[in-house]
């Protein structure tokens, strides 16, 4: 594929912006968590694009894939804890809206 690596970064920026938008706009906690996953995916794509642009046929740059693996692990942990929190919130409030947890609002 002869696409310049900048275009991979453009795709990454677009996906990250969509994740930010969804995280700020949606009030459903589960959808907000999905938007965080979208942002982490954009970060993965940026890591891999950087690795690709620094790789040569005789000298591969593997920091991108290695850090992507770490990011995926953290994303899995984040999803598990986030969804456990969603279940706890639902048990308390019978709702998964962010507005339903506002006791500590000043």
């Amino acid at each position: 594929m002869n696409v310049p690596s900048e275009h991979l970064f453009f795709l990454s920026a677009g996906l990250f912006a969509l994740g930010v938008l969804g995280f700020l706009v949606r009030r459903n906690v589960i959808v907000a968590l999905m938007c965080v996953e979208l942002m982490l995916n954009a970060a993965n794509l940026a890591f891999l694009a950087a690795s690709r642009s620094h790789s040569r046929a005789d000298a591969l740059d593997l920091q991108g894939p290695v850090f992507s693996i770490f990011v995926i692990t953290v994303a899995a942990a984040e999803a598990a804890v986030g969804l456990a929190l969603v279940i706890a919130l639902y048990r308390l409030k019978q709702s998964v809206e962010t507005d339903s947890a506002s006791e500590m609002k000043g």
Partner: protein
Amino acid sequence: MSEFLFYLLSVIALVGGLGVIFSKSPMGSVLSLLLSFFALAVVYLLAGFAFMAAVQILVYAGAIMVLFLFVIMLLNLGGMGTRFELSAAPLSSSRAKLAAVVAAGVGLAGLIAAQRASLPALPEGGAPERIDDIQQIAIALFGRYSLPFQAVSLLLLVTMVAVLVLAKRRGKESAQ
């Protein structure tokens, strides 16, 4: 040919991202996100990361999205319920407009940064066909990056305990 495929899949990934935000039911969001992840996996494959494409499908589409689906079905949120806001006019409130401005700013900053980044030019004949050699990744993970590797395994253990503590039904409180 593969260049055309890359741009097509980029559009599909972005459309999937839009679907996550503007879908009425959380089930539609999950399916849009799956579409986006599969498109990204093929983008990885085209860019020379065959192993990362497989990891993307196995871990993201196979494990994390199943977790989301499981929770949505467990809490019975899958229908087109009216309890979800933003179904009629997504960008009507001032809060949503502010969010759109922030997101557009973040995206623009990312575009400018990507444009100005001093990346080395691709070599003659394009980037290497295959970049993520599994053997080299394993050597890096267990050699140079062994300390982060152990830290991440500790993180997974802590996560497991935390999820058990959070999701466990406490007898006294649930009786009230």
